[in-house]
């Protein structure tokens, strides 16, 4: 064994030591809770009996046979699909319109980025203020123009929570796509532009494919984020009226803290974990194959 390799092995051993604190921390704060969760999902845990005893698959049976679970899951999936589509399309259109304007003016980009710095919970409260039927500026102005709209009423609440999500997070999609757009070299743009006969279309044909990796990321991140939505809907409607705006995250919260059906709440959260992992693995495969 040569000196060089033994030195390298020593180096690698030292490097592994650098990983230890992080690994221990993640194991304690994510690994351990996941294991507890798994045990709870097979037990009759309650606030009085925090260890619980084994009850087999009862919790899963209760979780899966509850139509409200499917309703909440359906809400989250539909919400994620609609919001992601609207955000990505809006962001893409805006990137093509605004890119020439923003290229040398970063402060303008900063103004568009402000909404995503706001806590979604507080954003929800702010919309609750400005959409208030009697004193909120938006309903008041609409009323002056002859449209009486109750944004927070049963008929419009779904559209309202979708619109809030889209308005807050389109800037995020816009930022990622703009960053990708700005890394495309000037020469390439010129080459595309020289092909003057088809102008705009040829630009799209050349630029869009180059932005595809960024598009994949944006779709993935926004889908996941909208799927797990909690904050702004919780402060705006608490999941109501009825269960109309109960997302899967709000559903688990309600099972746990409102109805005290702990075992069922845990079972749903384990199912959600498995679904999320499947989604992540699928997305990873997609990205890896692309590279």
């Amino acid at each position: 064994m040569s000196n060089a390799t033994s030195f390298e092995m020593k180096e690698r051993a030292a490097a592994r030591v650098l990983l230890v604190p992080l690994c221990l921390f993640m194991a304690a704060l994510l690994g351990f809770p996941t294991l507890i969760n798994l045990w709870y999902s097979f037990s009759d845990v309650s606030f009085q009996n925090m260890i619980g005893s084994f009850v087999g698959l009862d919790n899963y049976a209760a979780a899966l046979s509850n139509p409200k679970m499917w309703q909440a899951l359906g809400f989250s999936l539909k919400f994620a699909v609609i919001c992601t589509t609207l955000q990505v399309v809006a962001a893409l259109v805006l990137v093509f319109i605004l890119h020439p304007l923003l290229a040398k003016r970063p402060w303008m980009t900063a103004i568009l980025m402000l909404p995503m710095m706001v806590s979604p919970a507080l954003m929800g409260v702010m919309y609750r203020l400005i959409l208030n039927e009697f004193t909120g500026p938006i309903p008041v102005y609409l009323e002056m123009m002859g449209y009486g709209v109750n944004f927070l009423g049963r008929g419009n609440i779904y559209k309202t929570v979708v619109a809030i999500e889209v308005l807050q997070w389109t800037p995020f999609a816009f930022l990622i796509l703009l960053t990708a757009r700005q890394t495309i070299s000037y020469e390439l743009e010129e080459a595309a532009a020289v092909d003057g006969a088809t102008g705009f279309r040829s630009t799209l044909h050349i630029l869009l494919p180059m932005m595809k990796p960024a598009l994949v990321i944006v779709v993935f991140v926004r889908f996941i984020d909208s799927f797990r939505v909690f904050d702004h809907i919780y402060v705006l409607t608490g999941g109501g009226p009825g269960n109309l705006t109960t997302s899967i995250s709000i559903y688990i919260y309600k099972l746990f803290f409102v109805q005290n059906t702990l075992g069922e709440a845990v079972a749903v959260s384990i199912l959600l974990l498995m679904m999320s992992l499947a989604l992540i693995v699928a997305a990873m495969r997609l990205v890896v194959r692309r590279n």
Partner: protein
Amino acid sequence: MIVSRRSRFDSVLHASRWVVFVAVALLVNFPVLSTILTSFKTNADINAYPPKWIFEPTLEHYRAVLASPNIDYSHYIMNSIVIATVGTIFAIVLTLPAAYAMARQRVGSSWLLPLITNLRALPLIIFAIPFYFMYKQVGLLDTRLGLALIACVINIPIALVLFVGFVQDVPRELDDAAKIDGASMWKTLWHVVLPLSRPVMLAVFLLSFIYSWNEFLFGLILTTKSAVPVTVGATFFVTSRGIEWGPTAAAMTIGILPPLILGLFAYPYIGKSMLAGAVKG
């Protein structure tokens, strides 16, 4: 002739880009703008019909919020500051050495890095219930430390991604020079990498602080009184006694301002961290 028509077309195009920009900027920022304005209005101005956009500003609602007998808002602000700062420091201390090991020695970069970067895609509610019980057992329920640990967990993925990208950009020769001088890995990390990391450190700090400050779910579930963060505390103004517009708007403004200001500097790193995570993850 052709040239001038062309340039007129260009200037119309340019003007319409500005119109789109202003419209979008107003649309997405309307709630923030409206809330900040409301917070400076007297009660008479708030109830004015039609809504007033020009008025004499007052600070009475801010005084009311900070002196509120029922809601200890200044305490909640302090909670958020402590939680976000401590959580951010924890995340940096844990991830910088690990990032160095991953980028330089490629230990763990094939499994630990993708594992951790993908954690940010998991719905946080999954961990809410076990955290509640765990914290109840060890006495971390309703404590700043408890929420700081969670802030740390939430920030680890983004800190790790940014640090790994940074170490990859540090010229290897610098490390090698230190090694030849007989410096250990820890010493190299401390004396070579750390001093160079100031810009990325700032990025990590800004983003972690913003994300920690804006966290709501765990604040809602794990606190009741002494460790309530601003995001949760601000909602008390709405639910506890109907809506008092002025104080609520003032509380909102205080709650959104710190991340809003930091965000002006931090936003380019969000784009970078997202794209980096995908290429390397």
